[in-house]
């Protein structure tokens, strides 16, 4: 009996969906727009994350060592920094490397290069470039460096750390962390509002389509249909609209992201929209198909419910 009911309800739902072509078309259309907004927000979120990470990566703290510092001391500082959980990477630039870099940077500037030659010895010290996992963690790392540098002395009895440029970068770093936070919060609010509005529009459209069928519902009741039998076909139709819209959106976005990437890829500063869509396809599919099914079925269920009082 259970399977017979399921079979009859599904058949009736599918029939209604195709026989009410125009009504089904409009619910598919509205739901497609909702899912379009949700997918756009997912992709925009991906792009935002990517660009914030790019900016975060540009920020670092540099530790300058005095010229007489032992390489082994520097490497042990590097090692202890790497063991900190906040640190994502530490790059060591030796004195020789620093000289090569300097010469490369001032290639056309004869005067500076001449002055450098006259010095005879390499005047540049080694540096460590430290990247934190999060901009807000630089303060802690700088504090750690301060504490440590007073303890590590060179053979000449001097502090091997010449300076840490955290204080100069401090303002920029702090401002950046607050921007990152506000962009995140703002983004979430925008997403929530957009998604809510589109869900409400979908609900209302489905409510209207079912309002048109309210006479039909009362006839079904008169013929002796149980509420499951009345609701079932509408829920199936709604579910089908959701699935169709989801499929449309998933295909459409493969095409859209491909072309955006192809023609406007440069504007996304290295972010490959198409690749992002493809690599996260399973998650996006889950979210979009899930939202489509839940939206369609739930909206229909709730809308029919109000006409079932008699």
């Amino acid at each position, binding site marked *: *009996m259970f399977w*017979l009911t399921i079979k*009859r309800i599904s058949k*009736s739902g599918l*029939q*209604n969906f195709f*026989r*009410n072509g125009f009504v089904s078309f409009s619910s598919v259309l509205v739901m497609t727009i909702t899912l379009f907004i949700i997918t756009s927000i997912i992709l925009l979120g991906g792009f935002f994350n990517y660009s914030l990470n790019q900016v975060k990566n540009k920020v670092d703290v540099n530790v300058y060592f005095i010229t007489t510092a032992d390489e082994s001391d520097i490497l042990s500082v590097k090692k202890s920094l790497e063991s900190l959980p906040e640190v994502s990477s530490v790059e060591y630039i030796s004195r020789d490397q620093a000289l090569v870099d300097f010469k490369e940077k001032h290639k056309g500037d004869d005067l500076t290069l001449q002055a450098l030659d006259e010095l005879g010895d390499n005047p540049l010290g080694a540096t460590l470039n430290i990247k934190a996992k999060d901009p807000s963690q630089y303060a802690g790392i700088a504090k750690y460096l301060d504490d440590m540098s007073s303890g590590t002395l060179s053979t000449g009895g001097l502090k091997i750390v010449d300076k840490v440029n955290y204080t100069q970068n401090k303002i920029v770093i702090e401002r950046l962390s607050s921007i990152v936070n506000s962009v995140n919060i703002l983004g979430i609010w925008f997403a929530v509002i957009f998604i809510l509005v589109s869900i409400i529009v979908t609900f209302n459209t489905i409510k209207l389509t079912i309002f048109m069928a309210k*006479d*039909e519902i*009362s*006839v*079904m*009741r*008169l*013929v*002796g*249909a*149980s*509420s499951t*039998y009345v609701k079932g076909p509408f829920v199936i139709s709604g579910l089908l609209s959701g699935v169709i819209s989801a499929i449309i959106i998933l295909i459409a976005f493969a095409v859209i992201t491909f072309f955006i990437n192809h023609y406007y890829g440069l504007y996304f500063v290295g972010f490959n929209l198409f690749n992002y869509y493809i690599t996260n396809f399973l998650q996006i599919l889950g979210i979009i198909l899930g939202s489509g099914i839940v939206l369609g079925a739930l909206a229909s269920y709730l809308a029919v419910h109000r006409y079932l009082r*008699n």
Partner: protein
Amino acid sequence: MIVFDKITKVYPDGTVALEEVSFTIEPKEFVSLVGHSGAGKTTLVKMLLSQENPSSGRVFYESLDINKLKKHEIHHFRRKIGTVFQDFKLLPNKTVYENISFAMEMSGRCDDEICADVPHVLDLVDLTHRAYNFPHELSGGEKQRVAIARAIVNQPDIIIADEPTGNLDPINTNDIIHILKKINDLGTTIILTTHNKGVIDSLGKRVITMEKGKIVRDDKSGKYVL
């Protein structure tokens, strides 16, 4: 047996639709309710279908107090009653065949029974050739015959026909009444509301005449007197 026991219906705005109406309908009876519009015929019918509750008084079917049925019991009860209305109330998205099989599906009948019974009732109302048409492709008389087929397919104890000929021409009216009579002869109680004098006079069955919410006449083999 159906019993209307001192039924009064007062709407919230103070309109009195029915006042202390009592009568009994025996099994296999053919009862016509006649009266002007607003006399209370349709309100009575709605109470029998549990679509409306009386302000006071009770409606019984056998020993069942209809207006005390719980929400989930109502649709079970309605399957005992076949209904035919002036505006046909067919499902527009279903074919003639599906409109009838729908009523059988609601009663939980199996596919084999449906395949056997639907053609049979279609033949009874002479609509076999229209089985796969949609309601909007049918004439008024044909639609009403579909409604009757739907009403009788579950072999209900009672058929309520609320102004079934209101939208039909005289020839179709005759057809419909003829079919109803045939169903009554087979043992189904029929409750017919109408204000068609010709129909009542030709029937020669029990007539209950209503006026302003009250029963003014109840004749065993009555005529249309108003």
